């Protein structure tokens, strides 16, 4: 009595690797996924059966190997492309790996001083403009001039008033009192009298 052989053993004896002769179907999608994506740690009986199938089915074995190789190429090409892309870009600026040590303190002081001066300069300029603006100085001069002019005007008006208020103007004083001082008057006037003409 010959022992019963499994279909896979029969196929192996016949030297064939065609699944059709074994009366089997090819790997299912789940088996294929388990072989491709599964890991040894999670391999169960299903994976073991699929691996056994690969031993007798060249078509599935070739397909699996081809896809594995293609995915491997995909990984290598993608990583190489990403590496090249990353190299072509500027490096990130990362802070130096040191603490806020004393070596940085002078730099901080210089920066702080520069910032202080930068902030102070416009204030000084603004202050200078505020203290002596051109328009203000002109107006102050004008005010002082106006005050002195007012004083001189008042003095002039006072003189005019005093002359007007006088009964006889200063220029007519000699006519108002002809006897007061004849000699003086004669000396002062250039017009000769009738007596002088006779002389």
């Amino acid at each position, binding site marked *: 009595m010959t022992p019963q052989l499994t279909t896979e053993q029969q196929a192996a004896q016949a030297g064939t690797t065609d699944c059709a002769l074994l009366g089997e179907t090819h790997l299912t999608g789940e088996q294929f996924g388990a072989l491709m994506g599964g*890991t040894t740690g999670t391999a169960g009986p299903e994976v073991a059966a699929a691996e056994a199938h690969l031993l007798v089915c060249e078509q599935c074995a070739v*397909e699996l190997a081809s896809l594995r190789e293609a995915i491997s190429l995909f990984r290598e*090409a993608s990583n190489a492309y990403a590496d090249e892309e990353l190299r072509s870009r500027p490096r990130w600026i990362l802070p130096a790996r040191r603490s806020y040590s004393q070596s940085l303190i002078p730099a901080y002081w210089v920066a702080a001083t520069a910032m202080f001066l930068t902030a102070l300069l416009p204030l000084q300029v603004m202050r200078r403009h505020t203290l002596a603006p051109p328009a203000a100085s002109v107006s102050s001069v004008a005010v002082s001039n106006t005050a002195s002019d007012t004083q001189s005007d008042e003095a002039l008006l006072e003189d005019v008033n005093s002359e007007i208020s006088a009964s006889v103007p200063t220029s007519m004083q000699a006519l108002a009192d002809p006897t007061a001082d004849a000699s003086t008057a004669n000396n002062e006037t250039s017009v000769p009298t009738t007596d002088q003409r006779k002389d």
Partner: protein
Amino acid sequence: MAFEGAQMFPSTSVSLGNEARATPLDDLENVVALYQPRVFSFLLATLRDRDAAETLTQETFLRAWSARASFREDCSVATWLIRIALNLARDHTRTGRFRFWKRVTASAVDVAEVAAFVPTHERSAEAQLIAKQQVAGIWETVAGLSARQRSIFLLRFMEEMEIPEIATVTGLPLGTVKSHLYRALAIIRAQHVSSPNNIKTHGATTKETE
């Protein structure tokens, strides 16, 4: 930065106080040097936009550093960073602005550029061409996956994370992660099989490399 000026990160040396514990993220310069390529690569494959990928990479490290006190070290630094990056990418792709600019942005990744980086491995010119076609095909197919399928596929095959680690990063149950991964693989497998030369030339390619 080329598009938004240099990004200044906060000083790594700011005192955390006596009560604050030290974390691996305190040394930001070292963390960036170690993980920047990985985070950028993941975001670039996810978003397919170079500028957006760089912006979100910066944001990832900034957030990680800001929230470093909450890092309990129950996962690796890489896992934590990828988790932040994934959340940022998810938020970014939800905006309508991203959907609009995705079509017109000048910094969008060209498939041909990626395919040009296929390693040669001393292949023949024909095999090299087929390899480029395969990579371009997968790149385009991944773009057509749902956001969750794409993330899980990239975490598994680009980041080479284990299924439980992907579950941690995405916050999904193991079964859900497997389900999305298998569906993504089924779509990619269908595209791969339907492409001419992919399967039948594989043997020849393998022989050449051997």
